């Protein structure tokens, strides 16, 4: 299989081929997991620290990143967000909920024909700015959208 190193590690981990790889001594489990999930970025308590941890300390505002999200979410437990990057050569998209205790919600890497698009449901503890950062040509582009989380009915 012609894949990147990251691909081998992640793909193996996720498909259960991991067990086979471990058995044959190809990988140590800590290494496989540590390499595939950016712990520092996910543990960061501010959006800025999370961005630094994914290498996006400097970002450029871009109108070519489209964030589709409701301005009002009736339930913070499920806030649907749809992201499209029109920045040419987008390799990855990161989603940050700035007011969440751990702002980074996810980062998606696209290769071999995958379009820089993702639709995901996220949790929001309170009304917040949703920040999206797209990586293309070694640069980081960003756009934001505000989502208000309202109080539900009947004292919810």
């Amino acid at each position, binding site marked *: 299989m012609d894949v990147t190193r990251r691909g081998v590690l992640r793909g193996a981990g996720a498909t259960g081929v*991991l067990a086979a790889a471990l058995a044959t001594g190809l990988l140590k489990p800590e290494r496989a997991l540590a390499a595939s999930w950016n712990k520092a970025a996910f543990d960061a308590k501010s959006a800025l620290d999370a961005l630094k941890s994914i290498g996006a300390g400097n970002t450029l505002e871009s109108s070519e990143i489209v964030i589709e999200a409701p301005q009002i979410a009736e339930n913070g437990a499920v806030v649907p967000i749809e992201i499209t990057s029109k920045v040419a050569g987008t390799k990855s998209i990161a989603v940050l909920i700035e007011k969440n205790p751990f702002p980074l919600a996810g980062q998606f890497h696209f290769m071999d024909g995958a379009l820089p698009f993702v639709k995901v449901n996220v*949790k929001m503890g309170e009304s917040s700015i949703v920040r999206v950062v797209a990586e293309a040509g070694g640069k980081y582009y960003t756009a934001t959208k505000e989502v208000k989380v309202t109080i539900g009915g009947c004292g919810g």
Partner: protein
Amino acid sequence: MAGPMKARAKMQGSYADVRVLMNHPMETGQRKGSDGKPVPKHFIQNLTVKLNGKTVIEGEISQAVSRNPVFTFRVGGAKAGDKVEISWLDNKGETNTTETAIA
């Protein structure tokens, strides 16, 4: 033990729309269980989308993704009948995989 998982893939012009549904608690570690004790963190960290065996999307996600996650992706360079395989790995080392043919 992983609950059910389901994927659907459909050509939409030049790309395939891939939608995947996963059964997972996505525990943040902040919620209290019925016994009043915090429920430990338990969430999917990685997901992989493969087209005909080749990895095309890799996701790293946090506990901020909603319970029972649903994702939609778009995969270019695909055609009807191609095989799409999606798998996840969580912080406890549990995994699950599903595959579907593009319609």
